[in-house]
């Protein structure tokens, strides 16, 4: 389904920066090209020129483009064994702090933020925690704030929850209504949602745990490094960085400053 060529992709990246100030030049070209092709297909453009014109001239369409080309596939307790390690090994350590700050960078529609809130609640730590959840895409943040997810996903999420070591009846965390599951405000009251662009925005706080899972895969190596520097700058000493199951910091010079937790995609900042 490849419709645009390399030159057109670069033209789009240039114009998006020139007209709207968003910099996609550090995004993985293989993935970005697929997303733009998908957008052209979804919105029924006859050619690349039509898309480019609309992106240049209609700010609302540009916003829609950002919403569609960023990948927003996520789930609760995604990779449940990772959550088991958080539950059993990481929370008991950061839980000794008087106050816990966590940053979900690239949180999408928030499923992993609610998963974290559940872990914290069960460890009796949620009352002294703050969960900052950010994404480049404002639309997904609106979904995340509401804490309303499709009901048909709950069977899978409940299984994930149990594999992560959850002992309760998962269904008591949400209210089912009209095909949706609404998660309680007891979980969301410690969440702060805001738009943040890992490409252009800086550090805004110091955290004990930063989760950025399956976001860096959409960046080229240079931008990955830049994001890792931002995370390093935003982590307290002995804080933890969590990445996706196929992401790593081992190619980065920053790895010297971190120690991997067993074979998990979790690194402790030691310098």
């Amino acid at each position, binding site marked *: 389904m490849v419709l645009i060529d390399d030159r057109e992709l670069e033209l789009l990246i240039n114009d998006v920066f020139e007209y709207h100030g968003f910099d996609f030049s550090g995004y*993985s070209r*293989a*993935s970005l*090209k697929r997303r733009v092709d998908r957008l052209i297909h979804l919105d029924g453009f006859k050619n690349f020129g039509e898309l480019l014109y609309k992106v240049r001239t209609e700010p609302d369409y540009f916003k829609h483009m950002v919403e569609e080309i960023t*990948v927003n596939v996520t789930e609760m307790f995604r990779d449940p064994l990772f959550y088991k390690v958080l539950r059993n090994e990481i929370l008991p350590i950061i839980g000794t702090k008087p106050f816990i700050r966590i940053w979900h960078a690239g949180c999408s529609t928030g499923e992993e933020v609610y998963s974290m809130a559940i872990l914290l609640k069960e460890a009796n730590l949620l009352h002294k925690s703050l969960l900052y959840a950010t994404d480049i895409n404002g639309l997904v943040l609106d979904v995340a704030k509401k804490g309303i997810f499709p009901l048909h996903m709950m069977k899978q999420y409940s299984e994930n929850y149990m594999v992560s070591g959850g002992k309760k009846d998962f269904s008591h965390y949400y209210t089912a209504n009209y095909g949706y599951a609404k998660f309680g405000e007891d979980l969301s009251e410690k969440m702060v949602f805001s738009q943040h662009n890992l490409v252009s925005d800086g550090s805004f706080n110091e955290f004990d745990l930063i989760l950025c899972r399956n976001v860096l*895969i959409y960046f080229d*190596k240079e931008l*990955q490094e830049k994001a890792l520097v931002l995370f390093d700058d935003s982590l307290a000493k002995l804080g933890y960085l969590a990445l*996706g199951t196929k992401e790593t910091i081992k*190619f980065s010079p920053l790895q010297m400053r971190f120690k991997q937790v067993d074979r998990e995609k979790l690194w402790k900042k030691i310098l």
Partner: protein
Amino acid sequence: MEKDTVTPRCKVLLIGGSAGSLEVLIKILPRLTAIPTFAIVIIVHRKSSEDSTLEELIAAKTTLPVKDVEDKVVLEPGNIYVAPSDYHLLFEKNNLLSLDTSEKVNYSRPSIDVSFESAADAFGPEVAAILLSGANSDGTHGLAEIREAGGIVVIQDPESAEIPFMPRNALENVAANYILDVEGILRYIQSL
């Protein structure tokens, strides 16, 4: 002009398959001794959970190095790469592998089409692809793009496939360079 300069050498051999394809791989892999000029990338449908049993099974059947595919690893000749579960595998023009968790394609992630299309776009005529047994139409579109980009298209002879739907669907829609049974596929790879 010499022929070699007209037909670029294969730098990556993609093998895609679904139900019934593992049996073919198990027959072929032990008999491949060295692939010094190209890499093999295997994209087979697998369940979406974090496990590496497929990698372990493949590694047990070959003496070639089976690389753990993480995001942005380098694609190098001599190695076998296996598309990890729950990610699409993409190719960057600078020979890095990229992963992507976007929507499933043909009910699959990894999807064969996604990897085939991406390789066609990144490497054009330097790609060869083999589509094996399966019960799904994944792979057909990707083969068409490889063909259009000047790459080599090999389809398992449906007569020799445990589940003929996937290779048959491809044959009906794409002009294959070769239609081969399991022995033929092995000889083809050895000739690369």
